């Protein structure tokens, strides 16, 4: 058995950034309050002191501007890690991401790469209300040319950045603020993760729970509860939301013959709707019950806790739907 160590999701992210900055002097971190403030969520706290203002760049509140600049810097030979404080502000830079980063390679007939890495914190919760509580991964997952990663585990928090920096194409990474304080186990040795495949976080034979991001943890907990009832649920973390690792979830469904897709985002036109469609298209004859989804309620996220909780899937919602699917 290899040695493991305890680490928070936040520390895992920071270690990855530190490692990238140490290993490659073309890498720099740029974003709002990443330096002097210590990072809006303290992910980059201490890095300014460790490196320099050249490598840890505070930027004005000009999302379109600095994300665009990150894209330009990547086109011109640097390896920028652009941090957008939250996905909420990320929309101000959406044009740059969608119309520049995602299209450049294609428009130029394959000449120009945009190896930029854009990190955004995201997620619903903490009573931040309608403008600061979002799960907007589906917006980005819609766009060809982007590689969209959702970090739902400590392993990925530590490993994804390294893989993203190897990519010749633009990578958008979603990190979840609700998980920052969460402790997890990581092996002592360096972790290698890829940003191409989904990953089974828990094996099971009776149903495939397909999910990503902050919902991974909820699904794992739900699976443990279901085990007590004699139901073995497989939990598949999509991890890569674009391009989707369709082989992974089709294989899982072909084993279990039942699929439940869980995501915090709004139900309509979401990642789950895409996954559901592909299962129906490509694994129809493996299905023994209709594909089900547990998704966010279609409402801007309300401020009070009880309404916020009701807006996003909870463990018990997942447990209940699974039970109904298996024992109607």
């Amino acid at each position, binding site marked *: 058995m290899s040695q493991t160590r305890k680490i928070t999701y936040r520390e895992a992210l920071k270690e990855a950034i530190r490692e990238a900055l140490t290993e490659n002097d073309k890498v720099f971190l740029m974003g709002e309050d990443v330096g*002097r403030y210590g990072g809006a969520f303290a992910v980059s706290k201490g890095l300014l002191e460790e490196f320099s203002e050249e490598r840890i760049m505070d930027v*004005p509140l*000009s999302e379109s501007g600095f994300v665009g600049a990150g894209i330009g810097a990547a086109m011109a030979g640097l390896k920028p890690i652009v941090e957008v404080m939250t996905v909420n502000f990320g929309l101000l830079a959406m044009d740059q991401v969608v119309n520049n980063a995602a299209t450049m390679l294609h428009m130029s007939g394959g000449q120009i790469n945009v190896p930029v890495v854009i990190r955004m914190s995201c997620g619903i919760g903490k009573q931040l209300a309608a403008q600061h509580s979002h799960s907007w991964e589906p917006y980005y997952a819609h766009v060809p040319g982007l590689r969209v990663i959702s970090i739902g585990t400590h392993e990925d928090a530590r490993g994804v950045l390294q893989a993203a920096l190897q990519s010749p194409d633009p990578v958008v990474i979603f990190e979840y603020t609700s998980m920052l304080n969460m402790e997890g186990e990581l092996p002592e040795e360096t972790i290698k993760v890829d940003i191409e495949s989904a990953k089974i976080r828990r094996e099971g034979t009776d149903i495939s729970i397909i999910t990503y991001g902050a919902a991974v943890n909820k699904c794992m907990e739900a699976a443990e509860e279901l085990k007590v009832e004699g139901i073995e649920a497989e939990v598949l973390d999509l991890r890569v939301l674009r391009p989707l690792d369709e082989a992974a979830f089709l294989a899982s469904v072909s084993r279990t013959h039942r699929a439940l897709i869980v995501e915090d985002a709004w139900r309509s036109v979401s990642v789950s709707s895409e996954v559901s469609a592909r299962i129906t298209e490509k694994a129809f004859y493996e299905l023994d019950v209709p594909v089900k989804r547990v998704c966010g309620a279609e409402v*801007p996220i309300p401020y009070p806790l009880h309404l916020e909780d009701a807006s996003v899937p909870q463990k018990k919602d997942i447990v209940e739907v699974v039970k109904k699917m298996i024992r109607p």
Partner: protein
Amino acid sequence: MKMQSKNTERGQQLLYQILLIRRFEEKAAEEYTKTKIRGFLHLYIGEEAVATGVIQALKDEDNILATYREHGHALVRGMDPGVIMAEMYGKQEGCSKGRGGSMHLFDKSKNFFGGNAIVGAHLPMAVGMALAAKKLKQKKITCCFFGEGAAAEGEFHEAMNLASLWQVPVLFVCENNLYAMGTALRYTHAMQELAKKGPSYKMASSTVDGMDLEAVMEASEKAVKKIRTTGKPYLLVCNTYRFRAHSMFDAELYRDKKEVDEWKKKDPIPRFRDSLLKQKLITQKKVDALEERVEEDVKKAIEFAETGTFEPVENLTKYVYSENQYQ
């Protein structure tokens, strides 16, 4: 100085308002640490003279749009402290039925349009509201508060240009508290004399000491008069300072304690109080009585919020679409 033109009663009312903001927010901070209030809580403490001075220069029919640091603006606009506190408690008796919380205070009856939490995103809306007033031949102006951080957003530039191009009655009030969250003005703006941005859009502008209520009053009255007579927009930069952290959970690694202490010496509240005392527009006894009244009103606000109720969860998807679709 400028208060001479105002009567005693007016001075006392303003002192009440500025004190109310301070005490209300101090209490809010306390309730936050007890988890009665959640989400983000951005306090205005130190900056009260800006909202108090600007809003008193407006008429009731004028529109106001503010940022996520808007408790003061809502109070000066005349919204009930209890209803605001209930909103921060997430109770359905709150001004936004508890749906918005601290960052999203709204009251249409008072022409108070938030409570906007995406930095700079409300500036174009302000231009649109002013455009509507112009097209509808209404006399009202639209007042839009924002921080100097927002002035670095593309939307600031777009809104300024549109307002001036279309010649619509907007009062842009830049509350320059020197820090965009934790990043200082010098790291976010190449041109730090923010009022100079006005003329580049052919827009009138001026700068005022935002820690001096009377100066803010005078500057805003002048600006508002100009907008009403010309119908054109105006940029008013108020230099101010927040005494407290950006939000509750902020270790303030980015600024020096000495700097905060220096600014605290310019606290707008004692400054205004002493000015009133000096001008004999108020007595110390009256000041004490006002303090007591404020304390009582804050207490009532808390009681109102405490006794409020949570909306039933069945209502979750209310207010997503209008109930009267075809009216």
